[in-house]
């Protein structure tokens, strides 16, 4: 449901109708940005912003901090696993040796 893709706003084409152009991996398309423009984000400030595009509308601003945080959690999980494995290795080796005998 609801195919959406991150794109970067590269130009404002019509500030009255809130029409902008986004770039998705080199492909460009005009979209409507009225759902992501408010007092905190006036239309002039939108160029360079990453948005989630759905059926020609920017439906959400992509939160860079949150994206980095999600990835950081995953990295930590990976580090933790690696550490645990390191700690377990001696017992594994012992177990293997016992089996070998």
């Amino acid at each position: 449901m609801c195919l959406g893709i991150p794109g970067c706003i590269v130009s404002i084409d019509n500030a009255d109708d809130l029409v902008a152009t986004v770039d998705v991996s080199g492909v460009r398309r005009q979209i409507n940005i009225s759902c992501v423009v408010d007092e905190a984000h006036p239309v002039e400030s939108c160029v360079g912003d990453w948005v989630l595009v759905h059926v020609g509308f920017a439906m959400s601003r992509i939160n860079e901090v949150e994206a980095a945080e999600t990835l950081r959690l995953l990295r930590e999980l990976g580090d933790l696993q690696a550490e645990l494995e390191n700690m377990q290795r001696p017992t594994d080796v012992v177990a293997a040796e016992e089996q070998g005998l």
Partner: protein
Amino acid sequence: MRYVDEFRDRAKADVLIKAIEQLLARMKRDETRPLQIMEVCGGHTHSIFRYGVEGMLPKSIELVHGPGCPVCVLPMGRVDDGVAIAERPEVIFATFGDAMRVPGSRKSLLQAKADGCDVRMVYSPMDALALARRNPEREVVFFGIGFETTMPSTALTVLQAEREGIENFSIFCNHITIVPTIKAILDSPDLRLDGFLGPGHVSMVIGDAPYEFIARYYKRPMVIAGFEPLDILQSIWMLLKQIDEGRCEIENQYTRVAAREGNSIALQAVARVYELREFFEWRGLGSIDHSGVKIRDAYGRFDAERKFAVPNARIADPKSCQCGEVLKGVIKPWQCKVFGRACTPETPLGALMVSSEGACAAYYQYGGVKRGRDEAEASVA
């Protein structure tokens, strides 16, 4: 591709799979049956099949593919009504590509186009409005389908048409809401689901408050999930942690896109243009109260159902179709009597075979036919 490729990273997938396996190993649970997790959203179903996520998961986790494809659940009668509008000589009928193949009782829009109707595929409702601007002597009707995610775009297009004073544009409104449908699934007596992956893009519009009842009254955990395969794995892991720790909460994995409070501009546009229907018919699930919207009187001139008399036919789902049971996770697609026989993507009987988002079509397309049967045979033996 930024914000995409990072979330398709294979090394991180391995980490999550291992974490899921470890969690499962120490969890206290009923070992006689798998944990059933429903991804409500068709976008998730698509990603799961597209990236082969299901095969990476331990056997003790079963993904149940939910009703979250607005194209699939469109009842035949509504398709017939759309075709009837498209058949009017003055009409240009603009639609998203995936609605073209949905069968009506007489024909699909694809067939209507072959029969001479002016059916155009568009990417955005705004493109349909542009068609109206360019063709002032014709009536442009946009086939409004989609859940809460898509609703605001159609509403904003209506508001734009009003601002510009465009009179030859209207919406054939079939927008539906997923939240009451989750409730309907939770209310079904044969429910076995252990938790939900929440629809990330619906959530970016409505926020996470509307799901609270799932945790509070139905005591099921939910994790609002993004659509990249890593998002899905991480959400499953978060869900397992909730189950393991005995929590039932609405958590959000997709924080980079779906803010807790949703998008108030989008919601305001929705509230301005639409009002709730008493009930709406879903293919496979029947009539669900307050699960669809129609255009308010104030915008009645943009409502294709008022502009053109539609037959408003009701056509029952085929009796042999077991989509409802598949949707609730009672049976798997391949266990349906007609799956892959009378019901194929070329000649779909049920909702779930209609679009590639549908659970049955996905199984069929990505080779679940064989795998499914093998598993079924193995479980019998």
